[in-house]
């Protein structure tokens, strides 16, 4: 059973603790225990993965990121790192000492529970990121949310549905929200005035229904009836809006054919896909009144979704992974409709780099008279839907063709670069080509550099084949182009289009002003739903080009 929960920052400083019983230890006590029994559990990522150099060093020294450990006879601590919030979640779990009881669930359950709670906090506060400040300001709400999710030391069934949580823990309404909502109301009113024909009537009927609804809510059993467990039936929304965001993240490894390393060839040729995946999320925000039935039709671009994870509300028997239409009665507010995963490896459709993402890259070694120059060409393709890409960052990795020969003997010098600046890492084998935070599409950037060795007289040294053949004379051989560009990793993100090309064809929303409160109005009056278009977000987590 779950004894207690804690949230800490990236340096293991306590932010929040939920101690639902007298026996639950405070984080301070727990921390002492962790330090004495399993100090490795306390290792942090040192402020996320951004500082890759340090991260690398950590992984090199074989420190693994531990996720759980025993701290007592039947006590186990689990740790979960929330990437979105840069927070650690911890929980203390007691295993049953009773032999007849299986501890099966504990394999992953705490991790899943903490992940869900993390997502719940985001949904509850309707944020994209929870800050420490937000937690500190809302200790009471968060305590109650934990109380909702865990009951009697077990996960509360049905406790994860946001409608239930929100009905139990009403949102705080502070002054700023009042102002915001007023502004919104005025905006709506203005909008309605422009289209008086259908807006006002709806508004009037809604006003009426809300009044009548209030009158009747006092009866004891009317609230019991929910159409579906994830949706309360008394949702009054005057916005009637539905938002859908598709967010894709890609991670891919391509290999450059050997032929193009010697002579100049045109870009994008000779790349072979080694492995790659795209993961995508459909985030919805639904503000629809009544009991709407929404269906979303996706253009899957020929990809097979396989078995994506779907929100409980999606009607599965109508779902087909080939022709993707999702029909559902949405929960109110923010929720994750679907999470999918596309395997690019072994996929017939994916043949070359061009089809994935709008940035393509190529690089060449052994250029120039001394064959010690390299050139990287980045082509940010033009697109009608995307006009700029953000946070473009290209990591260049040079490899010593003979490992271990003194590393201090070379230096990377940039001869020419059209955009951005070059930043070399301390260990000399890596550098980052950093761009402005926004780059317009339809640009081509070139970086040309030279790897200088100290004794660079003999430059005839050519290829890695040589390096592998002439084994015995390696130490005596010329250091020449000892280093060469071997691996390039691109990272960027942009809006407007998904990486896989998956897009929404149509969204249909049937809002029926439903059941109990709208007694007098027509039973199936269709209210027009403002559907504000789909937001597409693409993030290339890492696209690696490499040479063997």
């Amino acid at each position: 059973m779950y004894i207690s929960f804690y949230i800490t920052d990236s340096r293991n400083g306590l932010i929040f603790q939920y101690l639902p019983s007298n026996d639950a230890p405070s984080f301070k006590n727990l921390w002492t225990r962790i330090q004495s029994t399993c100090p490795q559990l306390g290792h942090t990522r040192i402020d996320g993965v951004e500082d890759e150099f340090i991260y690398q060093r950590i992984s090199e020294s074989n420190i693994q990121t531990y996720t759980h450990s025993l701290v007592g006879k039947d006590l186990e601590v689990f740790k979960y790192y929330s990437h979105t919030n840069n927070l650690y979640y911890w929980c203390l779990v007691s295993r049953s000492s009773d032999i007849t009881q299986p501890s099966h669930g504990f394999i992953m359950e705490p991790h899943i529970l903490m992940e869900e709670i993390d997502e719940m906090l985001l949904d509850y506060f309707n944020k994209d990121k929870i800050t420490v400040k937000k937690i500190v300001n809302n200790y009471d709400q968060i305590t109650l949310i934990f109380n909702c999710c865990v009951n009697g030391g077990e996960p509360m069934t049905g406790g994860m549905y946001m409608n239930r949580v929100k009905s139990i823990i009403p949102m705080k309404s502070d002054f700023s929200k009042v102002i915001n909502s007023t502004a919104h109301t005025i905006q709506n009113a203005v909008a309605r005035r422009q289209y008086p024909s259908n807006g006002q009537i709806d508004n009037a009927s809604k006003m009426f229904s809300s009044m009548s609804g209030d009158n009747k809510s006092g009866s004891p059993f009317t609230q019991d009836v929910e159409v579906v467990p994830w949706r309360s039936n008394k949702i009054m929304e005057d916005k009637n809006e539905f938002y859908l965001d598709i967010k894709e993240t890609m991670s891919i490894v391509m290999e450059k054919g050997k032929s193009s390393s010697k002579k100049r060839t045109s870009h994008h040729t000779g790349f072979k896909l080694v492995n790659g995946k795209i993961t995508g999320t459909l985030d919805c925000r639904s503000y629809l009144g009544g009991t709407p039935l929404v269906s979303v039709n996706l253009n899957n671009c020929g990809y097979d979704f396989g078995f994506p994870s779907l929100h409980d509300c999606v009607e599965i028997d109508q779902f087909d992974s080939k022709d993707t239409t999702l029909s559902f009665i949405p929960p109110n507010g923010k929720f994750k409709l679907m999470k999918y995963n596309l395997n690019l490896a072994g996929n017939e459709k994916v043949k070359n780099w061009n089809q994935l993402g709008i940035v393509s890259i190529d690089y060449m070694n052994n250029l120039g008279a001394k064959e010690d120059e390299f050139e990287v060409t980045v082509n940010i393709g033009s697109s009608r839907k995307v006009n700029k890409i953000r946070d473009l960052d290209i990591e260049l990795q040079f490899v010593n063709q003979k490992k271990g020969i003194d590393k201090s003997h070379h230096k990377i010098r940039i001869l020419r670069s059209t955009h951005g600046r070059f930043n070399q890492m301390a260990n000399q084998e890596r550098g980052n080509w950093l761009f402005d935070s926004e780059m317009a599409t339809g640009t081509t950037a070139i970086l040309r550099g030279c790897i200088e060795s100290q004794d660079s007289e003999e430059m005839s040294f050519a290829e890695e084949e040589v390096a592998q053949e002439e084994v015995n004379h390696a130490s005596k051989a010329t250091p020449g182009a000892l280093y060469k560009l071997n691996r390039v990793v691109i990272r960027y993100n942009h809006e407007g289009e998904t990486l896989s090309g998956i897009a929404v064809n149509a969204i249909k929303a049937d809002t029926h002003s439903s059941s109990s409160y709208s007694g007098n109005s027509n039973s199936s009056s269709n209210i027009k739903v403002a559907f504000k278009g789909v937001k597409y977000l693409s993030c290339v987590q890492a696209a690696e080009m490499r040479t063997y």
Partner: protein
Amino acid sequence: MVDSISHLASALESARSITKEAAAVVSSKLGESSYTQFSQSLDSEQLSTYLNSRNSREVKDAMKRIIATMASGDTSLNVEYFFADVLKNITSNDPKVKRLVYIYLLRFAERDPDLALLSVNSIQKLLNDSDQELRCFAIKALCDIKIQSLIPIMIHSLKKAVTDPSALVRVEVVYGLLKLYRWRTSLDEDEVDFLDTIETLFQDLLCDSEPRVISACIILFQNAYPTKLEWLHGHFRYYCKILKQLDSWSQSALIELLIKYSKTYIQAPTFINPVTNKKQQLSEDCFSFPTSNEIDMDADLFLFLNQLLPLRYSSNPLVIMTCCNAFYQLSTPSKLKDSRFSEALYRVYSISESEGIQTTILQTILFYAHIDITLFSNQFQIFFLLPEDQGEIATFKLKILSALVNEMNVKEVLYELKYYILFSQTEQIILAAVEMLIACANISFELENHIMKWLIKIMESNNLSPNVLDSFVDVIRKLIITNPLRHMKIILKLANVLEAHPDMADNARAGLIWLFGEMTTVEFRICPDILRKLVRSYTIEGVESRNAILLFAAKLLSCEVDKQIEMNGQFNKADSIIAKMYDDIIYLAKFDDEYDVRDRARYISSIFDSEKYQIATLLFQAPKPTTRFKDNNLMSFIQDNEETIGNDIKEYFNYIPWDENVETEEGSDIRKPVDLKDYNRYKKSISSNSFISKNNISRSFAGQNSDSDANISKVNATITSMSDRTVTTTSSTPKYKLQSLDDFFSDVPAKKSSSKPRTMKTIIIEEEDTSSEEEESSSEAEETGTSDDEEETSSSDNDSSDDSI
């Protein structure tokens, strides 16, 4: 005069502070942060005043402060000090304040039970509140206060609430029972007389028709009665049907329970063994058969496995994992493959961001890959490392690849591995990749040869780190040892390496020397020469190498002794060159810097000096275990991965044996469904003025799961094969033929359009606000109504089921 002035001054002072506070409160409304600052400025005296204030706003502020102090681990304020002040506010009209007081009580009630008892009365009052959430809260709070004298009250309240029309309240009752059950261990034995009551109530709740209640029941079942599988008899089919509608936490728990149930009460499926061509029951050994496609299983088992299929879309990783386990335990690998849960398993890994989940899933995949290579082998590329894969995840991926490698894909896998070994920046990945080469080499002799040559080439050309070099040597050693005679060329090459690279890392050299020591028994001729060269370099070697040389010399001598004895019947030390070299080395070792080396030298020399050659043979010529393990034995797999695979996972994959003594009497169906209890009907039959259409519920759930159509009466009907006598429930979907009078009148417009998938009904609710007294009487009436109805339904249902048999 002075007095009055000072009065005035103090009055002014207090007025000022009041104004200040008021200003603070006003400003607090402007934003969360400023509010927090304000609330933190409250000192303990003010807090106490606020807690006792009549102004609900102030009480709320104070309670928030108390909770914030508890949650932040702030020790500057002793919250326990305010116990009485806080407790008082349980009577507050604001539900949120009540909840906050309850949170406080959770933590502190046990420390002062007598005082905490004071709150019970007002909590009890809430049990009859008209708001279901408040009733839920009351039950929750009551059961969470751990005071012994409260037990009778708790049990009484739970008994009463078990028939509450609101499913949420009944869910809370189940959790209440769980809390009571958990409590038993901390009580004396004579006080634990409530267990029977819990069981009776629980049995009732298991019959509930509402999936939400069942969800909670499963949690209780799993935690309190995991061995009472016989209780599931009557519910098996219904639970299977509503599986999709349960909460995801309960889904995995229920699947676990049903796996165990099936193993105990359902006959093992049979299949035709392809080897013996005989009918055979499914057991653990069956996984070694290539494919046993046709299996014959019980209808209920089939139903269960079939109902798992919609769960492939589940967002809860645990559900996917337990579903896989269900197929593994109850069926064959080929069925698991057909179910395509393996794809869902990979998806879970792929979209998850939690390392805990990812590693567990990868371990699971590794496990299944060992059981049936075809599950993942058509998509082996997906396990190639991506740029972000680090640490454990990368290691597991490589392990999975090594499990999946076969003749078809070995070329690509090997290519990829070589890349990691040459260019990876992370030593951990390099080491794991080197280790994996063994799996590739096991595929064919040519590969084995190729890999060793490649390793030696890299070893010579690149300056590798000691760890990596060590792993290289390790792999070469392991490969050679399996069949040394075939690899004579390689061995000779290694001898050259040893000679040409005196600067190689100590541990790697030691490894190589050890290898030649092993060669003494296989190919004696080459060894003396190697030793001769090593004697010369002994003084410049590292510690490990010196140890290895010592051991090598001992091994060689032992062989020499055996040979001479075989030929001449005795061993003459003076004639043997090897013995001289050995003497040299022993001499050097006895004066070594390292006491370990000296120690070993003494121990070895004592054996040979005392001429106990048989012992020497036993010690130095013992055959070493080989690494070739490519059989699909699970136990050996688990042993091999002892360190990497966690205990939980091992336990998880324990194959539960089928119970062979399952009685199958013809005609008696132990899983005959019992009657369901639908509490929604009571609220209709009682308050004739108010009723709620259940149309929507059945519609939405019906859409979820085509098989079960999810409306209870239909489920019941199909099971009892009495489609038109739906007696246990009265949900008023248009599909039913029997309806209550109320439904009949209300459904007139809806009925016409019942063929359409979606019908919206207009219901007019006319109900006066009932006072709490009335409500109580009505709830009493409900209870009586309940029992009547139950009798009615059960009797008629019994009839129906009798008919069906």
